C-alpha cells in the first residue's frame, strides 16, 4: 500500500513524524480520511481523535483539542 509523509506537531514537541498509510481526522465539517496522494487540502479540526495507520500497519491514536491540517504534495502536516 502506498504511503504519505505525516507530521503531527504541537508547540512543544513532535508527536508523529513518518510515513503513514492512512489518517482519519475530525474535521470541523465532519470526519475525513487522508490517503496517499490526497488533493491539496487545508482544514481546521475539532476536538477528537486522530487515527493513524503507519507504514507497518500499526494503529496510533492522538487526542486533540484543536488544530489545523494541511495536505499537499503527498505530505500532511497537523498542527495541534
Amino acid at each position, binding site marked *: 500500500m502506498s504511503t504519505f509523509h505525516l507530521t503531527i506537531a504541537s*508547540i512543544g514537541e513532535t508527536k508523529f513524524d513518518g510515513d503513514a498509510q492512512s489518517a482519519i481526522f475530525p474535521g470541523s465539517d465532519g470526519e475525513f480520511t487522508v490517503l496517499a496522494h490526497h488533493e491539496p487540502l*487545508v482544514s481546521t479540526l475539532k476536538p477528537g481523535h486522530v487515527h493513524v495507520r503507519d507504514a507497518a500497519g500499526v494503529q496510533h491514536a492522538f487526542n486533540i483539542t484543536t488544530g489545523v491540517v*494541511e495536505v499537499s504534495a503527498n505530505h500532511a502536516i497537523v*498542527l495541534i
Partner: protein
Amino acid sequence: MAGLKNIKLKISSVGKTRKVTRAMEAVSAVKMRKTQERALLGRPYATAAISILHSLAGGIDAANHPLMQKRDGKAALIVITSDKGLAGSLNSNVLRAAEEVIKEHHLNKNEIVIYAIGRRGADYFANRGYDVRERHENVADDVPVAELRTATDAILAWHNAGEIGRCYIVYTNFLSTFEQKPIVRRVIPLAPVALKEMVEGIPPVKGKYSNGKIIDKTPIYTIEPNAEEVFNVLLPDLIHIIVFHALLEAKASEHSARMVAMKNATDKARDVGKMLTLKYNKARQAAITREVSEITSGIEAMR
C-alpha cells in the same frame, strides 16, 4: 603578624568565592544546553505553520485578517528579561533596546502597555511609571506551554478589545555562547517574512544542529470550512510561536550570558588568589628576615 593573618583570611574567602562562581558556571552550562535542545524540539511545528501560511497567502487574501492589518491604538510591548542578575549586560541591553523602540515610534508613556516576563524588566518599567499590565516571574526553564498561552491570550484579548493596535516583543537573541544580541520583533501586525526569519534563526550560527530550509510551495487548496476559519486558528498560533521562541531564545541567552559572566568571575578570583598568595609569602619572608636580624643583633649586643 596581624597583616599576615588578614591576608590569609582574604585568600580563603577568595577561594570560596571562586568555588561558588565555578559551580554557577557549570550549572548555567547545563541549563543552556537544555534550553537550546528544547528550542529545536518546537521547530518542526513552527516550520510547518509558516509553510501553511506561506502557501495559503498565495491563493487567499490573508491581509484582510485583523491580525495582519495595521490599526490605531496603544502599542503593547512584551519585554523578556531574566529574574536574577549576575548575567553581565544581558538585561540592560534588552531594556535599552526596549527604550529605543519607544523612542523610534514616538510613543508616550500612556500609549504603551507593558507585558513583562522576568522581574528585571517588570521592575524597570514599573519604576519609570509605565503601565505594566502583566508581570510573569519564575518562568521555568522548560517553559510550560500552558503558561505561555496566558501571555498570548492576554495580548490577543487586548487586541480584540481594540485597546492595542500593534505589539512588539523585545528579547535577547542567542547567536552563540559568547554572543547574544537584544532584538525587537513586530508581533502585530503579523508579517510572514519576519516569522520566517525568526524560525530560520532558531539554530545557533555554529554548532551541531544543522539548518533545514522551509519549502516554498503554492498548490491550490481545498479549504475547509473556509479561509477565515483557518486563519482564525492559524494566526493566533503563529503569534504563540513567536512568543514561545522568543522566550526560549531569551532563556538560552540568559544561561550562556551567566555562564560567561561566572567564568570571568572564576578567572578573576584565581588571579586575585595568586596575587594574595604572593603578597602573603612576601610578608612572611619579611617577618622571618626581621626576626633573624633581631636575633643576630641581640647576640652581637651580648658579646
